[in-house]
C-alpha cells in the first residue's frame, strides 16, 4: 500500500511562509533608484538636526577624555575595590552590540538564510561603529594611553613583553582581529554598490570619490568570481570570531576567583547576551531608518519578525544563564557565591539595577512570543530599547556588584559614577550616532547588488516550484 504526497494550496502556503523577504519584484533600475536615494537626495533637515546633536555629544566625549587625561583616572568614580567600572561596562556593552553584524553576515550566510541580504550592510556598519566605541574604553583606562602599543608583542629595547596569561591581552588580539575582519567584510560587500554609485553620480567630485573607493570595479565575470571567493572566505573567517570575541571578554571575568565572576557558563552566556543586544540595537536603528527612507519593500515585516525571534531566542539563553548561575550558587554550598546572588545583587544597594536587568532581559522579551507584538513596529522598537538598557544594566550588575562587596566586609565600598563617567557614556552614544548618520548619508545602507541577486533567486525558485507542481499533477489525479 502507498500514501500520497500532497500539494499545498496557495492559501495554506501563505499562512506557513509569512511575510515575503522582498515585496514585489522591483527591477534593477527601480532598486538602484530607491536604495541609492538617501545618498543622492538633498540633505534632510531632520538629518542635520540629529547630526548637530550627535556632533555635540561627540564633542562632549572628547572633552571628557581630555579631562580624564589631564586629571588622571581619579576623575572617574572608580575606587578600590571597584577598580573596574564604567570603562569596562561600556566596553563590554559596545562590543556586545557589535556582534549582530558578523552574525548576520557570516553565520546567517552559512545557514542559507535569505533574509540576511537586505540587512547585512546595515548591521555590519553598526558593528564597526560599535567596536570603535568599545575600543576607546580600554585605551583611555590605560592611565598612560600613549603607551598603548606596549600591548603588542614586539621586540622592544625596553624588553617589555605582554603577559600572555592574561585574557586582557587576548582581548587586544580578539578585538583587533574582529574589527579588521568586520571592516574587510563590510568593505568587500560594498564594492559593487560603490561602483554603481560612481557610475550614476552626476558630479565629478562624487565620481572621483566613489571611483577611488570602488577600486576599479567594472562588474566583469572575473570580478564577480573573485568577489564571491573573497566573500565566502571572509564569512568563514568571521564565523569563529562571533564566538571568540565575547568568549574572551567573558574570560576577563571568569578566570578570576571572584564570586559572581568565576562561573563556567560565562563564555556561551556572554556570546548569547552579545547577540541579544546586537539585534536589539539593529532594531533600534533600523525601525526608524526603514520608515524614514521608505525601505519597507526591501526590509519587510519578515526581517523585523525574524530579528525579533532571534532576540527572543538569545534572550531566553541569557535567562538560562541567570537561572543556572543562581541555582549553582546555592548548589555549590559556597557562602560567598550565594551571598552575591541572594544578597548583594537581589537585595543589596544596587538591587534596583538588578531588578531592572531582570525586567528588561527576562520579562520584557517574552512578549515577543506573540506575533501581534512582533508585527507592531512601535512596540518592537520599545522592546529593543529596553533590551539595550537591560544589557547595559547586566554588565553593571556583573561588574560593580561583584566588586563592591567581596570576601571581607571591611573592604566593601560603594561605587558612584561621576559626571565624567556619564559624559563619556553619553558621548560614545553620540559618536556612534554620528558615524551612523554619516554612513546613512554617504553609503547605500541596503546592499543593492545583493537585493538584485535575491530577486533573481526568488524568481528562479518560483519557477522551479511551478515546474515541480506541474510534474506532480498527474499523480494527484490517480488518487
Amino acid at each position, binding site marked *: 500500500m502507498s*500514501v*500520497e*504526497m500532497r*500539494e499545498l494550496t496557495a492559501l495554506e502556503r501563505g*499562512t506557513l511562509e509569512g511575510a515575503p523577504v522582498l515585496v514585489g519584484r522591483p527591477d534593477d533600475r527601480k532598486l538602484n533608484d530607491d536604495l541609492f536615494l538617501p545618498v543622492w537626495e538633498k540633505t534632510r533637515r531632520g538629518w542635520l538636526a540629529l547630526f548637530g546633536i550627535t556632533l555635540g555629544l561627540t564633542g562632549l566625549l572628547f572633552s571628557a577624555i581630555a579631562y580624564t587625561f589631564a586629571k588622571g583616572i581619579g576623575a572617574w568614580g572608580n575606587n578600590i575595590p571597584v577598580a573596574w567600572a564604567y570603562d569596562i561596562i561600556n566596553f563590554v556593552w559596545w562590543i556586545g552590540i557589535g556582534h549582530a553584524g558578523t552574525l548576520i553576515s557570516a553565520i546567517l550566510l552559512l545557514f542559507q538564510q535569505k533574509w540576511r541580504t537586505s540587512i547585512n550592510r546595515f548591521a555590519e556598519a553598526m558593528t564597526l561603529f560599535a567596536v570603535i566605541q568599545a575600543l576607546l574604553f580600554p585605551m583611555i583606562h590605560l592611565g598612560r594611553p600613549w603607551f598603548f602599543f606596549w600591548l603588542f608583542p614586539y621586540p622592544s629595547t625596553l624588553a617589555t613583553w605582554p603577559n600572555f596569561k592574561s585574557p586582557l591581552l587576548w582581548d587586544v588580539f580578539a578585538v583587533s582581529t574582529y574589527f579588521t575582519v568586520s571592516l574587510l567584510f563590510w568593505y568587500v560587500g560594498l564594492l559593487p554598490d560603490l561602483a554603481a554609485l560612481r557610475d550614476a553620480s552626476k558630479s565629478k567630485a562624487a565620481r572621483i570619490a566613489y571611483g577611488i573607493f570602488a577600486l576599479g570595479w567594472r562588474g566583469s565575470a572575473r570580478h564577480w568570481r573573485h568577489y564571491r571567493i573573497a566573500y565566502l572566505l571572509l564569512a568563514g573567517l568571521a564565523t569563529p570570531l562571533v564566538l571568540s570575541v565575547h568568549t574572551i571578554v567573558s574570560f576577563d571575568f571568569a578566570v578570576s576567583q571572584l564570586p559572581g565572576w568565576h562561573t563556567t557558563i560565562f563564555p*556561551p552566556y556572554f556570546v548569547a547576551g552579545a547577540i541579544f543586544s546586537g539585534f536589539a540595537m539593529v532594531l533600534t536603528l533600523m525601525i526608524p531608518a526603514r520608515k524614514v527612507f521608505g525601505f519597507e519593500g526591501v526590509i519587510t515585516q519578515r526581517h523585523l519578525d525574524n530579528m525579533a525571534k532571534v532576540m527572543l531566542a538569545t534572550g531566553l539563553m541569557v535567562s538560562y544563564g541567570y537561572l*543556572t548561575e543562581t541555582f549553582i550558587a546555592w548548589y555549590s*554550598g559556597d557562602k560567598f557565591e550565594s551571598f552575591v546572588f541572594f544578597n548583594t545583587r537581589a537585595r543589596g544597594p544596587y538591587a534596583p539595577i538588578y531588578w531592572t536587568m531582570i525586567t528588561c532581559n527576562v520579562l520584557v522579551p517574552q512578549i515577543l512570543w506573540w506575533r501581534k507584538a512582533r508585527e507592531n513596529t512601535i512596540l518592537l522598537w520599545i522592546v529593543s530599547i529596553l533590551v539595550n538598557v537591560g544589557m547595559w544594566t547586566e554588565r553593571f550588575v556583573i561588574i560593580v556588584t561583584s566588586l563592591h562587596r567581596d570576601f571581607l566586609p571591611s573592604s566593601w565600598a560603594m561605587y558612584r559614577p561621576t559626571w565624567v563617567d556619564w559624559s563619556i557614556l553619553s558621548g560614545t552614544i553620540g559618536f556612534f550616532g554620528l558615524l551612523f548618520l554619516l554612513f546613512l548619508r554617504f553609503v547605500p545602507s541596503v546592499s543593492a547588488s545583493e537585493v538584485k541577486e535575491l530577486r533573481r533567486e526568488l524568481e528562479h525558485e518560483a519557477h522551479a516550484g511551478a515546474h*515541480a507542481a506541474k510534474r*506532480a499533477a498527474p499523480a494527484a489525479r490517480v488518487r
Partner: protein
Amino acid sequence: MKVTRFEGGRSTAIRALVVAVAGLGLTLLGGFFDPQRALQAYHVAFVYWAGIAVGALIVNMAFQAAKARWYVVVRRVLETIPLSSALFLVLFVPVLLGMGHLFPWVDPSHLEGELRRLAEHRRPYLNAPFFALRTAGYFGLWIAVSHLLHGWSTRQDTEGGAALTLKQRRLGAGALPFVGLAMTFAAFDWQMSLDLHLFSTIFGLYYFAGSFLAAFAVLILAVNASRAEGLPRALMNANHDHSLGKWMLAFVSFWAYIAFSQYLLMWIANLPEEVPWYLARSKTAWLPVGIFLAVFHFIVPFFVLLSRGLKRNPRALSFMAVWILIVHYVDVYWVMMPALRHDPEHGIAPHWTDLTALVGVGAAAVAFVVWRMRGRAGVPVGDPFLEESLRYEPS
C-alpha cells in the same frame, strides 16, 4: 508522487531485540557477581543513550522553530527516535532501585568532612524522592512533546493541510525552553551529582553538546541504514548529506568550545572546592583518556569533516558518524566513571559489563525505534514542504 509505507524492518527489530535481551541479561548476570560495577556500567550506558534520544528531540524542535524545510525528508526518522523516551523511562528503573550504590548523597552518613557538609547542604534538592520525581517530570515532558510532534506529523500524512505544520512549529518553539531546562537538570542529577565536588554552570550545555552531536550521528546512520523503498535514503540528494555533515562539524566544534571553556576556567582559577574533579582526571590513569578526547573528539573529526567531498559521500559520512558515537561514549564514560568509582588512582579498569550494558540499552532503543517506524510512511508525505525538501539545492 507516491511513497510506499514502510513495512520492512521486522527482522532488524527482532534481531535488535535479541541483542538487547542478551546484552541486558548479561549485564544482569554481571550484577550477580559485582552489583556495584554492573550498575555503574548500566548507568553510564543509560545516560549515553537517553541523551541521544533527547538530543534528537531537540534537533527536531529547533528545526521546527526555525521553519527549516531541507530536513523534512529525514524528519520522520528524527521524530521517531525521541519516542524511545518512553522506553528510557522504563530503563531508568534499575538506576532508581540502585541509586544508593551510585549517588553518594543518597546516604550522607557514609560521608565525611567537606563531602558530608555538601551532601547535607544539598539535601533539599538531592534526596531520593525528589530525584525520582524530577526524573519522572523530565520524562513526562519528553514523552509528551515527542508523541505530540510525531502524532501531528503522522496525522498530516493522511489529512495534509497547513494547520498541523503550524502546531508542530508552535510546540517546537514553545516547548524548547522547557525541554532544554529538563535536559540541563537531568545532567545535573544523573551526571554532576555523582561527584559532590563538581558544580559547574556550563554542565548542562556539556551534556547537551555531546548528545546533540551524537543525535546527528545516529540520524545519519539511521537514514543510511536502508535503501528500502519509502525510506528517506532513496529520496535524498547529496545536499542533504552535506548539511547533516555540516551540523556534525558545527557541533564537534561546539562540544570542544564548551569542554574547553569549562576546563580552562576551572584549571586557571584552581579553586580547591572545584578543581578536584579535573585532578581526578588529569593526575591519574585517566589523563590519556582526556587527551584522547581532545584529539579524537575534536581535532581529528574537525579536520576530517571540513572536507566537502566527505560530507557529500554517505558512506564516508556514516563512518564519521560511527566515530562520533564511539568518542561520545568515551566522553560520557570519562565524565561519569571516575566519579562513580571513587578510586581514580586505580586506573581505568574497564569491565565487561560496560560493553554488555552499552550494547544492550542501545539495541533496545534500536528495536523500539525500528518497531515504531513500521506501518507508516518513512517520510512525512503530508508535509507541505516535502516537495521543496526533495529538491533541496542551496546555491
